[in-house]
């Protein structure tokens, strides 16, 4: 029996189509898995069903009847609930309060019925008896809990809706094995009760442990639906990759440096918040890629190397000399450069002229106390021109430039005094295609001039096209190194989706 049906549902954000003409059937009493790479449209689809995103077109049928979902409250009244990947908990409220937040039991119409509140919460907490960990209780405040405990609370909160369609969007990312096992037992019970579960996860083993059917999404389109019993991981990855799996042939056009070249940066057993035991070497003239799913430690490693978040242990050698990344001022003076994709927050100095946006790193490295505008301009212009930045004048505000040109200004900042290593943290986020091509050509040129470059890109194509070697991150450590002809989308996905 089909419980929920999506007919031609589409959603676009500006020019990007997050979801186009999606058709999906969810049966009663099944766990239906959604699979797709970063930004393929899984979350958009689930948010549309849960009412927090409005579709542009298409129709949603529940029990055969077309329904309109105007918001989370209305989805809930239709018996649809969602586990939010980014959690929806109130940090200063207790576990019990959070579980029933949307549906507080009341006495005399206005008062909170504390007893019923706790009884109800106890019911859901008991489901996870023995795996909740230390310090977990009904009156524990959310902000005092660990990440896995918070995730459990969000699961309990979702379960407490007793909805007939429940979406779990990466509900297991912070849980340990015992917690996941318990969660799956509960899901099986829900299945027996005839409820429908939409399950999103990146862990292949989990999908095969709990799923009944799997639907693969690629670039906002539904690629196909398979019974889990009739498929295997390789087939699913092939469907996610699609037919356009051009091996990473492009960088072969130039000669990748070989072992004889001196290393620009060498990292041994670097450990810190969000990553552990990271070891790698970047040779001079090489672009080293960091790949994998979002948030597997790639950015954290780059930020640690830059000194923005101090690592707890490990050894870093820059140009053969040990580097202590105590803070960004230190690492900058030693020749480390870092460009963030989050231009607005971590790149441009908003509201200031282009010149002032180019100069600060030079002032810092040169220990300059007085800035002479003519001397400054003389240094800024060549750096900007080398990047073929389009701008009307150095005195114009940075906001007068397009996103791509703003990012060039940010990169130019690092080029007045040559850094030894350039760390690129998803540098092309929100930049149009032609500017991207420009930027990568430039990055390749910098590499050829002898700089060591580390590139993290959330778009897999950028990585495959531009990196000489790719380190695939999963769960905070490096799972696999892809070199030469191994650099294919298939290999990249396989390493990224392996059980962590």
């Amino acid at each position, binding site marked *: 029996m089909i419980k929920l049906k999506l007919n031609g549902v589409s959603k676009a954000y500006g020019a990007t189509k997050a979801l186009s003409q999606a058709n999906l059937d969810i049966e009663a009493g099944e766990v239906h898995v959604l699979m797709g790479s970063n930004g393929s449209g899984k979350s958009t689809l689930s948010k549309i069903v849960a009412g927090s995103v409005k579709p542009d077109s298409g129709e949603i049928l529940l029990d055969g009847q077309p329904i309109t979902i105007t918001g989370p*409250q209305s989805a809930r009244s239709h018996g649809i609930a969602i586990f939010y990947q980014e959690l*929806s*908990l109130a940090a200063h409220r207790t576990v019990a309060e959070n579980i029933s*937040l*949307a*549906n*507080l039991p*009341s006495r005399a119409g206005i*008062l909170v019925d504390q007893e019923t509140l706790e009884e109800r919460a106890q019911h859901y907490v008991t489901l996870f008896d023995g795996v909740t960990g230390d310090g977990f209780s009904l009156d524990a405040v959310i902000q005092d809990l660990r990440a896995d405990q918070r995730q459990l609370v969000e699961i309990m909160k979702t379960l407490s809706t007793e909805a007939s369609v429940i979406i779990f969007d990466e509900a297991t990312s912070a849980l340990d094995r015992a917690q996941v096992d318990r969660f799956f037992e509960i899901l099986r019970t829900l299945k027996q009760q005839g409820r429908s579960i939409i399950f999103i996860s990146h862990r292949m083993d989990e999908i095969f442990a709990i799923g009944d059917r799997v639907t693969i999404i690629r670039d906002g389109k539904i690629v196909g639906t398979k019974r889990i019993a009739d498929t295997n991981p390789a087939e699913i990855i092939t469907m996610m990759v699609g037919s356009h799996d051009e091996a990473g042939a492009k960088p072969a056009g130039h000669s990748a440096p070989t072992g004889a070249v001196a290393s620009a940066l060498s990292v041994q057993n670097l450990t810190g918040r969000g990553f552990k035991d990271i070891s790698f070497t970047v040779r001079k003239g090489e672009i080293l890629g960091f790949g994998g799913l979002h948030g597997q430690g790639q950015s954290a490693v780059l930020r640690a190397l830059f000194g923005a978040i101090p690592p707890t242990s490990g050894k870093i050698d820059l140009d053969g000399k040990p580097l202590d990344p105590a803070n960004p001022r230190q690492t900058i003076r030693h020749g480390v450069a870092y460009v963030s994709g989050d231009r607005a927050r971590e790149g441009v100095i908003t509201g200031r002229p282009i010149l002032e946006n180019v100069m600060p790193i030079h002032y810092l490295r040169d220990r300059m106390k007085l800035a002479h505008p003519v001397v400054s301009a003389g240094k800024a212009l060549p750096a900007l021109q080398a990047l073929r930045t389009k701008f009307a004048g150095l005195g114009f505000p940075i906001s007068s430039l397009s996103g791509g040109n703003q990012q060039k200004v940010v990169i130019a900042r690092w080029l007045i005094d040559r850094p030894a290593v350039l760390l690129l943290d998803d540098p092309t986020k929100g930049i149009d295609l032609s500017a991207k091509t420009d930027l990568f050509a430039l990055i390749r040129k910098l590499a050829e001039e002898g700089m060591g470059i580390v590139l993290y890109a959330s778009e897999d194509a950028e990585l495959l096209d531009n990196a000489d070697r790719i380190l695939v991150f999963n769960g905070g450590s490096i799972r696999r190194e892809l070199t030469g002809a191994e650099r294919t989308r298939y290999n990249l996905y396989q390493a990224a989706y392996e059980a962590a």
Partner: protein
Amino acid sequence: MTMASAPARSQNRSALKRAFERYPFLPALIILVVLMVLNGWFQPRSLSLSGVTGLIKTYLALMFLAVAQTYVIYAGDIDLSAGAIVSLVNVVIVAVMTALGGDGLSVMAALAVGIATGLACGLVNGLVVAALRLQAIVATFATSIFFTGLALYIQPVAGTPAPAAFWRTYGGRILEIPFVFYAVVAFAILLVVLVRTRLSLRLLAVGDGQQEAYQSGLPVTAIRMGGYALCGVFAALAAFCITGDTASGDPLVGGKMTLFSVAAVVLGGSALAGGYGTVVGSMIGALIIGFINSLVFFVGTPSEWQNLVQGLAILLALMAGVLVGRRARA
């Protein structure tokens, strides 16, 4: 021996930490006690029954207004029109009482009209901030000018006396106990009830994160409007106290109280960002401001220096509160 005492000490430590986390107004309470001792030191009579009665009579209005402000701040909003609502309700009830003859029944009618006025003002604020989604700080600043304008229209100049039946009751005694103490007890009962309401919990949840609350299925707009409505009603109660204390109508009486109410909320340990706080803390905060003002007077500060010393003392109290809280929670 040392092995055994270490965990015991850390247990004490975490019990202290828990206490400060559960009762964020504890630092304020400590400051209040210190200020009371200092007041008693410099002017022993200030801690006598009549001294305390006088202080409560003067600062009960600010206590109500601080509580009013707290409900809005719970949700991460702010109400810069709270003082203007006090002014408006003040002139409205004086006008109604005078028009109806000034006897007991007319006082009751005027109070009902006053509550309705406060509620209406709160709903207007809720409408512009939560429903129309204007910036709270600017929108309520604008409505404060609007409410003050209404007050000036009803009573262009200060000084219309309130009927004796009203202020004699407020300043008088029932069964040998000053009336304000009954008011404080009623106030406390009201707050105990309100703490247990769904609205109070939902306001805090909205303050913790509007997006999260919305995604949880909470009616965020209605909840924020509820906060403003509650604020309006408590501002009306504050106006009753100020009318009882000053015994007259004044269209500008509440204006300068607005920021004092915000200061009292912060002194009480609530977070301006929302999601965290207590109404009891705000009451204590209002009392701290009251005791600071009287202390500045009792130590004999020359009148031209009083504002400066008051300002410094409030700053010190804020700092002390932050430091004590941080120490205890660390």
